[in-house]
């Protein structure tokens, strides 16, 4: 078991050095697809964090029970189960978010981030380390999606978390809510992120 310093490193790497969105370019479909508002970005981020955490826990617990040759299909079934649970719970209790995220909820299954962490981390490490890894990576994903959603909402809709700071008729940069704005906003956020982290290290 690693020391607390190691644990902190393990947690922080997901947020900064190996940020899934800005550095590793994993899970780009939901990143671009649902971030038309900060709330949607946050919701998608948290849903993904939950699936990532649960799949890392289960994979780490049963890693010695799963034969090597069938590990990928086994991981996929585990991940898909948790995704379906998230889908059903969202539909039942947060129908508004369920409608907003639409097809991107079932698509959490094919988010390379989750299968990637199961394969490269949880299947080789202890339970605690896997939990910390999932929390770090998941938080990195949540932060990236919320930031992108916030930027697009501020520029495109003149509001943040539905709180409007311009009048209803004001002309905003609608482009940023439309599909092209997703690419463009992410491009500039990636530049800023790289600048800041390079200076910090």
């Amino acid at each position, binding site marked *: 078991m690693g020391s607390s310093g190691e644990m902190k490193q393990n947690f922080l790497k997901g947020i900064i050095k190996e940020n899934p969105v800005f550095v590793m*370019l*994993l899970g*780009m*479909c*939901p990143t*671009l*697809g649902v971030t038309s508002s900060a709330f949607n970005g946050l919701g998608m981020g948290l849903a993904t964090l939950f699936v990532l955490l649960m799949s890392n826990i289960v994979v780490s617990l049963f890693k010695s029970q799963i034969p090597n040759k069938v590990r*990928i*299909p086994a991981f*996929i*079934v585990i991940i*898909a*189960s948790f*995704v*379906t649970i998230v*889908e*059903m719970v969202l539909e039942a209790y947060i129908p508004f978010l369920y409608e907003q995220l639409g*097809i991107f909820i*079932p*698509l959490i*299954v*094919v*988010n*390379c981030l989750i*299968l990637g962490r199961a394969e490269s981390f949880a299947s080789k490490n202890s339970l605690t380390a896997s939990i910390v890894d999932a929390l770090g990576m998941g938080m990195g994903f949540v932060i990236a999606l919320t930031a992108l959603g916030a930027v697009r909402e501020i520029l495109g809709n003149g509001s943040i978390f539905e709180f409007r700071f311009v009048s209803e008729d004001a002309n905003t940069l609608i*482009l940023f809510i*439309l*599909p*092209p*704005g*997703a*690419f*463009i906003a*992410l*491009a*500039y956020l*990636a*530049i800023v992120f*790289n*600048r800041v982290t390079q200076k910090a290290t």
Partner: protein
Amino acid sequence: MEYWVIFIGAVFVNNIVLSQFLGICPFLGVSNKISTSAGMSGAVLFVMTIATTVTYLLHTYILVPMGLDYLRTITFILVIAALVQMVEIILKKVSPPLYQALGVFLPLITTNCAVLGVAILALGMENGTLLKAVFFAFSSSVGFALALIVFASIREFLELADLPEGMKGVPINLLVAGLLSLAFLGFAGLV
């Protein structure tokens, strides 16, 4: 006429990559050369069409009648994963040249969200029939190919461009994708 609308809609208006954001990973990942992107497109065309046929039948004739609709995600992803393996094995035996062209791309397709995404979208079509769903999948993969190949041909020129340090790599690719998406926005409202 109806099929024409589906085709134009899937290829231009609601292009799966540039306006629906499905299949972004291969779009950014294997688009540095026209030849590789053509190979990837071929593999996607193949798998997406077959996968949608199978998942549509499975959904309409097994899952829905048995009330197991909630197992959709889990069954679809397993079908796609198994299908990719099967296509790989069959292709190897039946058509070695085709396998050589598409082989390296096939394993990547399981986690290509465009395949699962289109399989799910095809279920939601209005007045859907099997033929329409399959045609929709085919059209979507043509849209995927179009986006990928156009993007790759721009990227080949970008290699020669003189860019500021911070712009190199990911940011400039995203910007180009954004402009391409903006261009496709011009097709909106066509159907």
